[in-house]
């Protein structure tokens, strides 16, 4: 016979201001099986917990219902209290009379009644509870880091330095990401490559890091501590073991006019190429789509000129499966091109460029070796107009968010331009200056005060070409919306930062959630900013939302620390809230298998004593099951039940709701 204790928490005023907690306790005491019932100001406090412990001892309770906040908040607290008195913790249930009752209803009898009903429902559940025991699962202490930009590099190094194995995969031929493309970085104007490349080399040389460049995630199975990732290592048509990185092949390639991705298409590259001189790994790759050999088989220049014999035209994509325990997603972002803007010429004006393209023009490793020369005729532009918020914060463009980095890099661009072209004029059209960050505001002030950058608050409605000049028509909203028209030599658009086009499909492969802009979603915007909703998968960098370098690095280290904490345990403890199948009634239709989002349902053959298969039934892998209950809902013969939320428990709760008698009012 159940002996249940009911404990009603006031939560200070949170519950008590609208619910008559004393009355709820009194009503609850009338429920058959409830042998003790009380209310208290803060049940989660030390005296509150002691009150529960003492009652368990005094009244020999077999189950406990705490009427308080959401179980997400304090279920672990109260289960621990109950367990400390020797009761199986799963005999403690929480009735949420705060979020589900006091917070959403006005003070009154009906609110008190709802709280009492909620308690009664949970009492019925406890009556039908069964002891459950935590599940232990092993942890593979190897991390998969997806994306080799600065975030992925930082996360890999941190995890590897803690003594764990890391597999870092990068879809491009070299790691480095966007940071490798930058000239100088705000707010210190230190050279981007100078601070990045040592980290890239460290990754390549680290004994715990396996670097797989030119590789992508093909599929992912498994769960926290026990993922199985299949990685597609794309054919680069180079035997990486033989290649010594001399670069002769890239010089001999007769195709030389392919727009260079690393230079944001400001320069050209051959069909066999190393993205940039400091690339890691420093091995070339053949661009199959543009290579004459792959088009008609007529060219072998690279092969005949390779002294190492490393060119392998027959190389195929490889699928490699790895076991990993945790995953850091650091796939970064991309930016909108100039073709996204009809008002700025749809990308047809050569001298209207994106911020990233301008970055390459400023870079000493760029196509102009650091001289600012405009793409159309190679002349040094004397007047450059920068347009901030190109696409960002613009509902009409479908991008309502702030791209965050543009204010700072536009100030930097204008500043660097003025350093290189001292007699030039830099005008910036802006909406607001968002310079929140250490030394950021000072940096923007420096642009205005020391480098004479002209800030104009207003939007640009149109850019068009006239007599070799770009006419920029805008408005100055600080001068009573006076129309402004500037004849510029060059226009730089700080185009919106957006998610990669394949972000959605990657999220689906990894089973992580993403927002309406296809940026990956964190588990909680404030308190769990680096975890995803899928246990064991964390986020780093701009794949979550636009971020600058310091933020990306900080988040990467945070993701790494989550991963390292996970790897510090040999066994993971999981809540036993999982589905179980009844093998005697299961008919093996495997509808459950097709609906399970976690691939947790396996086929088990039931055999007689002679080894003949009698039938094949569903069996649930307790490591994979996340207890979502979808299979339970689908099973026609109700041969699957969810531990902790069994059919019987739920049915008794629903029945209790409909069986309110006068006594419980």
């Amino acid at each position, binding site marked *: 016979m159940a002996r249940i204790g009911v404990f009603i928490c006031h939560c200070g005023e949170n519950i008590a201001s609208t619910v008559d907690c004393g009355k709820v306790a009194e009503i609850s005491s009338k429920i058959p099986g409830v042998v003790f019932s009380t209310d208290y100001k803060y049940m989660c406090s030390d005296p509150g917990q002691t009150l529960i412990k003492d009652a368990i001892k005094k009244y020999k309770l077999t189950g406990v219902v705490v009427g308080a906040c959401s179980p997400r908040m304090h279920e672990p607290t109260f289960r621990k209290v109950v367990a400390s008195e020797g009761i199986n913790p799963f005999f403690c249930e929480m009735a949420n009379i705060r979020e589900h009752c006091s917070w959403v209803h006005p003070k009154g009898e009906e609110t008190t009644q709802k709280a009492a009903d909620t308690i009664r429902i949970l009492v019925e559940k406890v009556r039908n509870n069964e002891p459950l025991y935590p599940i232990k699962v092993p942890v593979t202490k190897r991390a998969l880091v997806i994306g080799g930009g600065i975030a992925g590099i930082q996360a890999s190094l941190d995890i590897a330095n803690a003594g764990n194995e890391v597999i870092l995969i990068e879809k491009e031929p070299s790691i480095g990401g966007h940071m490798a493309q930058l000239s100088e970085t705000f707010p210190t104007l230190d050279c981007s490559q100078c601070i990045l490349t040592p980290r890239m080399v460290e990754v390549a040389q680290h004994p715990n890091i396996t670097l797989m460049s030119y590789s992508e995630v093909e599929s992912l199975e498994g769960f926290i501590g026990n993922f199985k990732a299949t990685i597609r290592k794309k054919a680069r048509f180079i035997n990486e073991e033989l290649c010594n990185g001399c670069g002769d092949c890239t010089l001999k390639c007769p195709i030389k006019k392919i727009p260079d991705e690393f230079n944001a298409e400001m320069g050209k590259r051959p069909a066999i190429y190393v993205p940039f001189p400091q690339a890691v790994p420093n091995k070339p790759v053949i661009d199959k789509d543009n290579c004459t050999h792959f088009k008609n088989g007529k060219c072998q220049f690279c092969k005949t000129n390779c002294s190492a014999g490393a060119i392998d035209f027959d190389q195929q994509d490889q699928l490699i499966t790895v076991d990993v325990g945790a995953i850091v997603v650091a796939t970064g972002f991309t930016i909108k091109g100039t073709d996204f803007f009809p008002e700025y010429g749809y990308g047809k004006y050569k001298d209207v460029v994106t911020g990233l393209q301008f970055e390459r023009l400023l870079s000493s490793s760029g196509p102009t070796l650091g001289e600012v020369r405009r793409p159309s005729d190679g002349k040094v532009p004397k007047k450059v107009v920068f347009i901030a918020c190109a696409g960002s914060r613009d509902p009409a463009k479908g991008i309502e968010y702030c791209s965050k980095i543009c204010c700072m890099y536009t100030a930097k661009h204008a500043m660097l331009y003025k350093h290189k072209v001292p007699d030039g004029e830099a005008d910036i059209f802006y909406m607001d200056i968002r310079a929140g960050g250490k030394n950021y505001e000072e940096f923007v002030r420096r642009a205005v005060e020391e480098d004479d950058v002209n800030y104009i608050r207003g939007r640009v409605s149109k850019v068009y070409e006239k007599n070799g000049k770009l006419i920029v028509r805008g408005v100055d909203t600080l001068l009573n919306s006076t129309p402004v028209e500037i004849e510029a030599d060059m226009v730089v658009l700080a185009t919106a930062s957006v998610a990669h086009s394949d972000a959605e499909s990657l999220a689906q492969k990894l089973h992580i959630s993403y927002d309406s802009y296809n940026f990956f979603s964190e588990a909680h915007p404030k308190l769990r900013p680096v975890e995803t909703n899928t246990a064991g998968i964390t986020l780093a960098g701009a794949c979550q939302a636009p971020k600058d370098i310091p933020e990306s690095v900080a988040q990467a280290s945070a993701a790494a620390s989550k991963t390292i904490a996970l790897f510090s345990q040999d066994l993971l403890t999981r809540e036993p809230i999982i589905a179980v199948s009844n093998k005697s009634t299961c*008919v093996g*239709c495997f509808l459950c298998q*097709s*609906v399970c989002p976690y691939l947790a349902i396996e086929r088990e053959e039931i055999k007689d004593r002679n080894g003949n298969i009698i039938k094949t039934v569903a069996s649930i892998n307790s490591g994979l099951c996340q207890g979502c209950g979808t299979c339970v809902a689908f099973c026609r013969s*109700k041969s699957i039940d969810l531990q902790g939320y069994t059919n019987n428990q739920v*049915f008794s709760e629903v029945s209790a709701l409909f069986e309110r008698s006068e006594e419980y009012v």
Partner: protein
Amino acid sequence: MTELQNIAKKLFDDGSINLLIGYSNNENGGTSAIFIDNSADIDKLIYNENCHQNLMVYFQKPEVKKFGKLAFVVSLPGLKSVLEIASENQIKDGDAYFIAIDKDGNPSLLQDFHQIEDFITNNQTKPPMGLLKLMEKINNMTREERWQYWTDEFSKCIKCYACRSVCPLCYCTQCITDINIPQWISTESSPIGNLDWHIARAMHLAGRCIGCGECMKACPVDIPLALLTANLNKSIAIHFGDEPGMKADYKYPLSHYKLEDKENFIR
């Protein structure tokens, strides 16, 4: 000897089967299922327009399974149920022989799912006009009229479960209505109990029913049960474009996620 009997005899003679389930005349002047376990009884085997029962309902019975090698006399609906239960892992290719009766009444022997799929594609028939008319009539009713119509129909139900017994897709060894811990579906023949049962039955067959109509024919109180599943199938076909009983590797649309699935009903 008829062609049908010839095919059956050959299967027995070369040891391909131990049991054949077909139709024979019964003492009431109608037809019933006959279970033939030796070739001597083959002359009782018949097929005519009265042979409508979907014999695949017997496939999963342990009493039948113990014979091992089986053959069934089946027309179009029976073959569709073969493919449907194949998609639900209840029958494997080669588990049984099928003597298929085409729309002209001619028998042919089908041995694998591929042949069955081809046969179904080549022998499609339209649902009976009466059924379509009634469906249209009900769909044209207002919500209230429709509710009243079904309430009246279900009020006749005596919970004999004949609809369940004749259905080749009701193969669960434990039906949800027989579960009493907890008793989700009330067992009594009352308005609520009848509604519980018929909603559960219709939902369990949504997107699976192959439309043999046996439930309706078996119902002693003439509830037009096949309409419920036919209408659910229609909705599923509109939303997901899939039809049960056409392919052995049918992906049940309510449980399989496809990237191209419409999401316009999520608001």
